[in-house]
């Protein structure tokens, strides 16, 4: 495969300005992630120490094999929710290596509100388990939670994908034959009790760990019975009497050592067979991505320049290079895994949609995982395009995206606007993983377009009533819409709401994708099968 030849001029002033802008964004991202991981009020750290508990990040570090990568997911979940009270939604999740096995980890962060489950915590745990199911990743739960955040129970308890889904997902994972281990460091109360109970294996720390449907205060209120935590649901009771937990541990260190030994007994799964060769680093420096990406969603850039800084050897076999050029399709490798790439290089027209639908089916038949690189402002609109059937051709692309059996991974490189997102495997289309870059934006339309549409509607309505609006009145409608849109289409809002699986620094993208591709291959790839393509 030929290398992509970069035509970027790194001495140009636009490159330099972009570089400064995007290194700034990356620094901001790392600072925010660092705070979520490590910055806590002293009283919370003191409380953990009083309780004889380790900082949850320390537990994670001890659990993982030293010197191996950990791909943390949704680090900045809830960063724009609950007045910032629940950084990371009070949960840690990610893919790592334990005793040589690739596993998915979910940990309650007891240094944040005692590990209480906010609505977005539940969403994060459910999503973590969804990823474990889709990628057949064994799960390790590090349990230490105060339970559901009762003030917000209406947003976390009853609906289909609320807390019950955690336990449903655990049961499904078990039914699929994917092992699960729970390590109980703190309390697992009410619903939380089912996490260890539904795990194939469980370890519980003596003195601090406890499992019960109702804690001592609830028992006292319900039946008047006075009972201690240890008697009601402590390590010795559950491991010697009830059989709810399997292994008692003398300390957190002992529990983690046991956990690592248990995981070491799990038979590693057979990976789906795909085309893989020895990896090769890209020929161009990934840091140059900072200078290539523009500073807004309006400025066009060549996605080949981005591809060249992510794929092995910067080698790319472009499919239909002369047709439907606003959607780049082609084969490349990431860490040796062959992948099919669909990358936006402009608006989706009829021909680019058809090309994409065709290429997805080629990759599916060819057992080649798909990478969608989004920078999409939408499908083309206008009389000419409707007459050519842009909706019909877009439907073909969506049908292909929805039906593909090979693993899909989505990366929002700059913008994800409008219906084009559906054609580029947006969140609703079950990509195994979806990541955003810090600069990226997501919304049904751009902020300025939305503000002008909404303002225009109001102006027309007033005119029907025979009134005219002053410039100030129009601005009073437009400006708040613009402001809300700008805030809610930012990558930080997306990731706060778990519309993605995390924000990646562009330079870390290649490694993250390598981990995801490896994980995705735990699941056998089904035969290609599609719905009806509207011809």
């Amino acid at each position, binding site marked *: 495969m030929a290398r992509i030849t970069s035509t970027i001029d790194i001495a140009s002033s636009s490159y330099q300005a972009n570089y400064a802008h995007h290194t700034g964004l990356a620094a901001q991202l790392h600072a925010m992630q660092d705070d979520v991981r490590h910055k806590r009020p002293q009283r919370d750290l003191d409380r953990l120490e009083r309780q004889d508990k380790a900082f949850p990040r320390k537990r994670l570090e001890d659990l993982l094999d030293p*010197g191996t990568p950990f791909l943390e997911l949704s680090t900045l979940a809830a960063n724009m929710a609950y007045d910032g009270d629940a950084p990371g939604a009070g949960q840690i999740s990610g893919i790592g290596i334990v005793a040589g096995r690739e596993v998915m980890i979910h940990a309650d962060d007891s240094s944040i509100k005692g590990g209480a489950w906010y609505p977005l915590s539940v969403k994060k745990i459910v999503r973590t388990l969804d990823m474990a199911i889709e990628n057949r990743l064994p799960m390790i739960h590090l349990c230490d939670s105060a339970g559901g955040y009762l003030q917000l129970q209406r947003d976390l308890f009853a609906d289909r994908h609320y807390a019950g889904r955690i336990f449903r997902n655990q049961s499904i994972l078990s039914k699929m034959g994917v092992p699960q281990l729970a390590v109980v460091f703190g309390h697992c109360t009410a619903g939380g009790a089912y996490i260890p109970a539904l795990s194939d294996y469980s370890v519980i720390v003596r003195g601090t760990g406890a499992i019960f449907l109702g804690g001592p205060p609830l028992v006292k209120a319900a039946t008047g019975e006075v009972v201690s935590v240890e008697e009601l649901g402590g390590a010795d009771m559950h491991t*010697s009497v009830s059989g709810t937990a399997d292994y008692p541990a003398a300390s957190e260190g002992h529990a*983690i*050592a046991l956990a690592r030994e248990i995981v070491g007994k799990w038979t590693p799964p057979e990976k789906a067979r795909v085309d893989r060769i020895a990896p090769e680093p890209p020929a161009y420096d990934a840091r140059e991505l900072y200078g290539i990406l523009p500073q807004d969603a309006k400025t066009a850039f060549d996605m080949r320049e981005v591809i060249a800084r992510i794929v092995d050897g910067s080698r790319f076999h472009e499919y239909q290079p002369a047709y439907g050029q606003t959607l780049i399709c082609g084969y490349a490798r990431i860490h040796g895994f062959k992948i099919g790439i669909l990358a936006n290089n402009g608006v989706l027209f009829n021909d680019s949609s058809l090309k994409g639908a065709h290429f997805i089916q080629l990759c599916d038949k060819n057992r080649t995982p798909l990478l969608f690189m989004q920078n999409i402002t939408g499908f083309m609109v206008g009389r000419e395009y409707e007459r050519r059937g842009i909706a019909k051709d877009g439907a073909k692309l969506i049908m292909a995206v929805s039906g593909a059996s090979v693993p899909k991974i989505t990366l929002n490189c700059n913008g994800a606007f409008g219906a084009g997102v559906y054609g580029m495997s947006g969140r609703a289309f079950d990509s195994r993983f979806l990541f955003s870059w810090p600069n990226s934006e997501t919304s049904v339309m751009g902020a300025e377009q939305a503000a002008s549409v909404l303002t225009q509607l109001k102006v027309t309505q007033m005119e029907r009533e025979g009134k005219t609006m002053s410039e100030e009145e129009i601005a009073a409608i437009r400006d708040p819409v613009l402001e809300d849109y700008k805030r809610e289409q930012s990558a930080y809002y997306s990731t706060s709401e778990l519309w993605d699986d995390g924000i990646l620094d562009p330079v870390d993208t290649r490694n993250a994708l390598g981990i995801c591709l490896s994980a995705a291959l735990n699941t056998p790839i089904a035969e290609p099968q599609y719905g009806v393509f509207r011809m």
Partner: protein
Amino acid sequence: MLHHLTIDDMPHSIWLSRSEEEYCLHHEGRAIPVSLTQGTAGRCSLCIGGVKHPLTMVSSGDTVFVHFKGNAYNIAFSDAVTFFAQAGGGSADDVITAPMPGAVVSVNVASGDSVNEGDVLAIIESMKLETALKAPRNGIIEAVSYEPGQTFERDAVLVKLVLEDD
């Protein structure tokens, strides 16, 4: 989680990870490429950061005796579960509970007695079967809860050992 070992009784925490060459030794935040080529009669060549050093080693169980640069070392490996179980102090082994309901036949110890692992502390009778309750570890008796002839329910705490703090 790191491996725990002692070199001449001094505790150390290290980790060996696989690397492209052979292994990478993780120690106190540093990662050093290492490899070991085994020869005959315990003679080996240890390569640390690209520099080769001859050494002789003999292993016996989880202990390795190494002769390196004119000195002899005794390196003992402790698996993580054992290491932390021992470091943990208080354990289930601090209380001896009744495996089933029954009656006490005899009591051989009193609080304050020191006992060795395996010493018979008491004999109980249940379902026409006599069972000897033995000390799970070396220690000192904190309390004996029942006298001969008394009956107890399942899981009753019969004997308690004083918590160890190392």
